[in-house]
């Protein structure tokens, strides 16, 4: 199975990964090879089978809506690329 160039470009945009023009053919071929593998699933009869999301059918636990975390802003921001006044700095979003 091969994937069209446009499809690769769309995936790259959705994934927010810049793809080098020169590697598109290779990426397409390798993704195609993985999709051939997973396409084996299409032949399986799964009518009436419930989708499984947790091995023990556990459901999401709830807790009281109380503050349990200490304020660690400075420690957490120490590892950030760029911060100012307790905010994470990124390139300008609004013109």
């Amino acid at each position, binding site marked *: 199975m091969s994937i069209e160039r446009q499809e690769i470009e769309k995936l790259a945009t959705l994934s927010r*990964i810049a793809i080098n023009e020169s590697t598109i053919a290779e990426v397409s071929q390798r993704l195609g090879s993985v999709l051939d593998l997973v396409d084996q699933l299409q032949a399986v009869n799964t009518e009436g089978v419930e989708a499984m999301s947790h091995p023990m059918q556990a459901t999401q636990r709830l807790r009281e809506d109380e503050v349990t975390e200490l304020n660690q802003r400075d420690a957490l921001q120490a590892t950030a690329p760029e911060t100012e006044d307790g905010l994470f700095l990124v390139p300008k979003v609004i013109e």
Partner: protein
Amino acid sequence: MHNLTIAELIKGLQSKEFTSVELTQHFLDRIGNLNPAYNAVITVTAEQALKAAAAADQRLTAGNAPDLCGVPILHKDIFCTNGVRTSCGSKMLDNFTPPYNATVVENFEQAGAVVLGKTNMDEFAMGSSNETSFYGPVKNPWATDSVPGGSSGGSAAAVAARLAPGATATDTGGSIRQPAALCGVSGIKPTYGRVSRWGMIAFASSLDQGGPMARTAEDCALLLNCMASYDDKDSTCIDREVPDYTATLNGSVKDLRIGVPKEYFSEGLHPGTEDAVRTALAKLEAQGAELIEISLPNSALSVPAYYVIAPAEASANLSRFDGSRYGYRCENPSDLQDMYCRSRAEGFGEEVQRRILIGTYCLSAGYYDAYYGKAQQVRQLIQQDFANAFDSVDLIMGPTCPSPAFKFGSKGDDPVAMYLEDIYTIATNLAGLPGMSIPCGMVDNKPVGLQIIGNYFDEARILNAAHQYQQATDWHDLAPEGVAS
């Protein structure tokens, strides 16, 4: 001292034959001398280790210290360690120093274990050969032209080379068991929900599970006693008492019903691996266990189901790495989109990018039901296979992987060839079952692993069978050339 097991080290520490500081210095020296040949350890925390060892010696002197007090270990670099770089084998996190400990790391710290450093791994745990690490591949101590397996290849190689008596690891599709097999060590992936995933960098959240590696099953039991705990901070952790896994090691395997799945001995299995595994099964039979041929008819579907579910979950989990709050940010981004796209293209390696793209494809509009929905249904079928089998057997055993360690680069350019390396291990992750690998033979001077799969929360029975097998054999005692001396 490096030839002693953890159980023996505990005795030595508690009877004051040696101190934790002496022991820690010994292993730090070994890492300094031997690690350059293996690249198993990527961060050494000598100063903290010696400090922790001195504190452990005080606790030992005071008495009533926990079992692991003073025992040196290594952590896979996927577990967040407060103040110590946690890279996950990626350029993306090469500069990341967490301000907190993972629950697993905290558990070992509370017990007084001494952390020597962090081990190398496939990038974001995506790989079966350690070739995807940003820090270069780990070399298999049994044959340095061959892979150690992955993704916990650094932990496996470090234990095999006796750079540490035990290490933590994680397993999403075989990442504890396959490297344990290829490096000739013991490693157990517990039941999903047994070990907290908090602070363990997420790959595929419904499959990831931490577990220990060591040379023997007894040592794995000692480590798992500390590693397993209920944790409020991991919402998928199961609240269930942790038994003392060492208490049941000595039970007999007489009348133990071992299921042998015929699908695990099919085409593609190396004849030498098959011989070694069959010989191991015969040994257990001679010890009184009963071998029962079983069928897991949907086994062949586990690899395709996994390569939908794992990349889909990975694509969501790895969206947090975007250059904004931590990790790698590209130089001079022109705008926000450029920052996201280039930081991710430059920070992630090829295999990680491939899996994000595949996961995004499987989850994108119009494909969700056909891929992710379908794979989750197939997952149910795979789980049902195991449930049926466990109606009539206590444990399931077979090979851990199809062949011994392969040479670097030998899986070529086709990612699928590498994915098939995990053909026998993936199904237990999909079902959430516990599984272990222990050494059971040698082929071409490379180790072979016996896989032992148990029912939910039956880690004690797995460890018991593994220990009984190790009482009767000495494959786990073998050391690569130059390592034992």
